């Protein structure tokens, strides 16, 4: 009895069962896409009337002009004038303002003389996408204002020195000179400014947990409960053929679903996909194999589907959401929790995927992550097959 033939028999059977269970199939294939759409669009809506507080330490006509430019843009709504820098924390923490514009003393003088100067825009980053948008608004407003100061300062110089005309022309064309006014954005609570695009690798990890861990564990434990597992163990089908046939369909579904998310994100949210597709597929496959290992391991421990589901939830699903850097940045976790994240495979997966998709860097940048994933996959599969082999006969 060839191994391949039994594996095919088991795989075809599994596919038919999955096909019969439409609800589960829909969950596996479409829930991640649904998540993507909901999050992606909800977070991308144009933002208006962002509550803005101002800390004007300059109190010059130039600073008032800048604040007016913010308010008149329609994007910002002035909710208060602060008098001390200590108040910045308060208004952000109590969500009285989503952003605070800090104009330092001496701003007006610098602007008048055309010297480079800075203002600070503090943005509440708890919602990554809002923060990105707000920052973009702030930057464009400041850029416009900066251009005006520069022009005014030059005109003043031009009226004194006729030779300066050429200078205006060249600098206007070259745009190489740094603008005299720059904004220095500080995004609090989410310094990486993760956006929809950052969601994609996390969603793929989520899919892997759903398909590979939860579905694999449940489908094997279901066979234990129904007694069909014992029936198969009585047959010449060995544990290897059984596991291969049993897990391949979920591997395929996981891969299709994950690549679907990438494709959908490219289509709808301009995901760049800067890196190599081969590396992408290889990384996803590696992560999926590790996840299958967890699913198998759980199925050798749990005797009922309920127990299997709970173990899967606690051991993989929640850590993937909470401890991988998907929802909460690892850097902002308590130190003890940061140590725990090293045990979460998704942590490495997210780094690798972001490197491939968003940065387009090569293997040299993230091979340690891939090695970590490979170690996880080998250890989990090894342990699972050891346990299964012992239970099989």
């Amino acid at each position, binding site marked *: 009895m060839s191994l391949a033939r039994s594996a095919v*028999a*088991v795989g075809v059977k599994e596919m*038919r*069962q999955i096909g019969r269970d439409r609800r589960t199939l829909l969950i596996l294939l479409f829930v991640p896409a649904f998540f993507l759409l909901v999050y992606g669009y909800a977070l991308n809506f144009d933002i208006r009337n962002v509550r803005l507080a101002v800390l004007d330490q300059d109190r010059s006509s130039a600073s008032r002009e800048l604040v007016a430019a913010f308010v008149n843009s329609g994007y910002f709504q002035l909710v208060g004038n602060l008098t001390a820098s200590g108040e910045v924390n308060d208004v952000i923490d109590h969500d009285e303002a989503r952003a605070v514009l800090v104009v330092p003393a001496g701003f007006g003088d610098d602007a008048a003389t055309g010297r480079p100067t800075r203002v600070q825009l503090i943005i509440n980053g708890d919602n990554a996408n809002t923060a990105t948008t707000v920052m973009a608004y702030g930057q464009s407003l400041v850029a416009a204002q900066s251009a005006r100061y520069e022009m005014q300062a030059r005109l003043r110089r031009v009226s004194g020195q006729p030779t300066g005309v050429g200078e205006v022309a060249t600098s206007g064309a070259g745009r190489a000179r740094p603008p005299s006014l720059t904004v220095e954005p500080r995004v609090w609570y989410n310094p990486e400014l993760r956006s929809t695009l950052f969601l994609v690798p996390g969603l793929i990890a989520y899919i892997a947990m759903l398909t590979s861990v939860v579905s694999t564990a449940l489908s094997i434990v279901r066979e234990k409960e*129904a*007694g069909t597992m014992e029936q198969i163990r*009585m047959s*010449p089908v060995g544990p290897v053929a059984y596991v291969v046939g049993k897990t391949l369909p979920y591997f395929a579904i996981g891969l299709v679903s994950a690549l679907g998310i990438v494709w959908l994100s490219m289509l709808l949210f301009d995901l760049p996909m800067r890196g190599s597709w081969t590396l992408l597929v290889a990384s996803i496959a590696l992560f999926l194999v590790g996840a299958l290992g967890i699913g198998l391991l759980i199925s050798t421990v749990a005797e009922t589907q309920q127990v299997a589901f709970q173990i899967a939830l606690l051991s993989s699903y929640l850590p993937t959401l909470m401890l991988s850097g998907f929802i909460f940045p690892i850097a902002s976790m308590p130190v003890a929790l940061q140590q725990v994240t090293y045990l979460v495979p998704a942590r490495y997966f997210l780094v690798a995927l972001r490197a491939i998709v968003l940065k387009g860097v090569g293997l040299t940048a993230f091979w340690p992550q891939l090695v970590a994933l490979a170690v996880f996959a080998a250890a989990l599969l090894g342990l699972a097959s050891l346990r299964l082999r012992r239970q099989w*006969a």
Partner: protein
Amino acid sequence: MNAIEVRQLTRRFGDFTAVDDLSFSVGRGEIFGFLGSNGAGKSTTIRMLCGLLRPSSGTAVVGGVDVGADPEGVKRRIGYMSQRFSLYEALTVDQNITFFGGVYGLGRERLEARRAFVLEMAGLRGREKTLTRTLSAGWRQRLALGCAILHEPPIVFLDEPTGGVDPLSRRRFWLLIDQLADEGITILVTTHYLDEAEHCHRIAVIDAGRLAAMGTVAELKQLLAGRPIVEVRAGEPVAAMRALEAMPEVEKTSMFGTTVHAVLRAAGAAPGHLVGRLQEAGVAVSSCEVVEPSLEDVFLDLVERSAS
């Protein structure tokens, strides 16, 4: 050569001995019954014979293959069916047959021939596309049997194959078993039902992992030879039982539906004698006669004897 040869088979789980020094053999084409209470060790024995569980000691040769040495070799030569009719409920009748055909490596032509045979045997023609979940228990049972013998194994193990099935389906099932045996297939079947045990050519009574008795139904009934069984019908069977137990010539009593069976210590005691004394004790007796021992009488006798 016998189809199954078991020598001093023993299986321990920790300190607990589930199967204790079991020896028996089953001939080709024989229907061999395993009779025992819950937890007697029937399933554990079958699992060892099928190569699923390693014996702690002893040997078993099934279909000429030593189970301990080559468990995988045994799996090819046997069919197995459990009480749970382990089929895939979400698949159709046809898909279940296809799956088990694939598992046993049947080629396309042979699979189609066997599919036709199983559908015919189980009476499932015209229901090929029916979901197994929606079949009644009788049909599921016959389909499970069909899937277990799809690869035409010379030896078939049936572990409580008739649980939860109506009497008519059970009768039909046993007809199928008789047919298989006629074709030379060896069958080892476990059951709780004593009436089913009567279908078996030979029976092994297992009690607490040990072989309590073995033989044909007639041979087993001989175990009660010299100790007649008196069946008493009375208005108040419980009172009758108490009164009988107080009598010195009565070894023990047991309830059979609404009647009471009393095992007498020796032959010769006249039933009429008992009636008189029962009436003296205030029990209204409607009948009292010596009956042939049933298998149940034998079983209860064996189990109680080993318990004391």
